[in-house]
């Protein structure tokens, strides 16, 4: 029997500041692999080269008063490299951390909804898990 971790215990930070209103976090941590299958192989063989990761998430509501969201918008506007940290527990003991750039912020609004956003972060170095 495992003990699942509820998502509400986690948080996403830019630098030291928590980004509020985050949902649907998708952190992809993978190794880039290349196909090195040769003529004398009877099965496909792949080989890992470098680590490759990406991060995307949604904002349930754009909040111009939240310092984390403002830091995110500022990082996008100024193309600033930022440290993104995704904590998995309330104490922040276990987390993923990596430097990256905000690649895009898609802002959507409609007459009967709140203003939302989707954010994409691309890597500028390795992702670590503590």
């Amino acid at each position, binding site marked *: 029997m495992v003990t699942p971790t509820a998502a509400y215990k986690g948080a996403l930070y830019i630098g030291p500041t928590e980004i*509020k209103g985050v949902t649907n976090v998708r952190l992809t941590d993978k190794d880039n692999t290349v196909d090195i299958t040769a003529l004398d192989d009877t099965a496909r063989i792949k080989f890992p080269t470098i680590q490759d990761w990406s991060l995307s998430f949604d904002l349930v509501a754009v909040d111009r008063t939240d310092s984390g969201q403002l830091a995110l918008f500022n990082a996008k506007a100024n193309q600033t490299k930022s440290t993104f940290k995704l904590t998995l527990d309330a104490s922040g003991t276990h987390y993923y951390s990596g430097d990256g750039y*905000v690649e895009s912020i898609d*802002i959507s609004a*409609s007459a009967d909804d709140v203003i939302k956003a989707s954010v994409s972060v691309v890597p500028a170095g390795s992702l670590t898990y503590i």
Partner: protein
Amino acid sequence: MVTPITGVDVVIKYTELTSTSMTNEQMSVVNDEFPGVTNYTVYRITNSLKRYLDDSVVPTFQKSLNGTDWTTIPSSDIEEIQYPGGRLVLKSPLNADYYVKCSSGKYFSMLTDIIYAKAIKVSWKNDTSDVTVFTNNARVKYPVLDDWSATIDTFVAMDELGDFPQLDNLKALRGQKVVVVFYLDESNDFRLEGYGYLEGADINMSPGDVIQQPISIVGSGKLYMRLV
């Protein structure tokens, strides 16, 4: 817990490109807009009606300690002129007691609402390039170009004369560079603004629905997010 903004306060505006000359327009400092931005480096034209500058004319700026004796701010001291928004970004901060003005330039005066809009999606992004090199053990990307685009969902409405004023307006704008302002919260001046082109304004008709007109806009230059 976040404080959401609803669609009630969303307004989309554009301005046509017929510009007016201006001289000695007072500017005021913009401090504390975003964390990490140095105070007394960003100034904007005080008169909000003159903040959308014509980028075909390079404006000039002056500074003064007493409001009487003015010296031109050399281009070497300027980090960026933000034409949409009428802002001057300096490389180094001025002293707090400096006055700054836009001594010459041109601006677009008329802002028009895009009416009957019910939804927008603004894609505000950086084009990134893969700069991973030998000895890197993880992928490294680097931002190169600002890029943006937007779609606006509108519906077609007839005025009391039986005309379609927005269709006429949009038709006139095809192929014209326009300043577009997306107010996410007009009451608090929270907005995105930039230059762009009207790429498309389609007409969709189906039984049981009103006539829809999705508008697509492509960016031409940076899109700026403003909090003030």
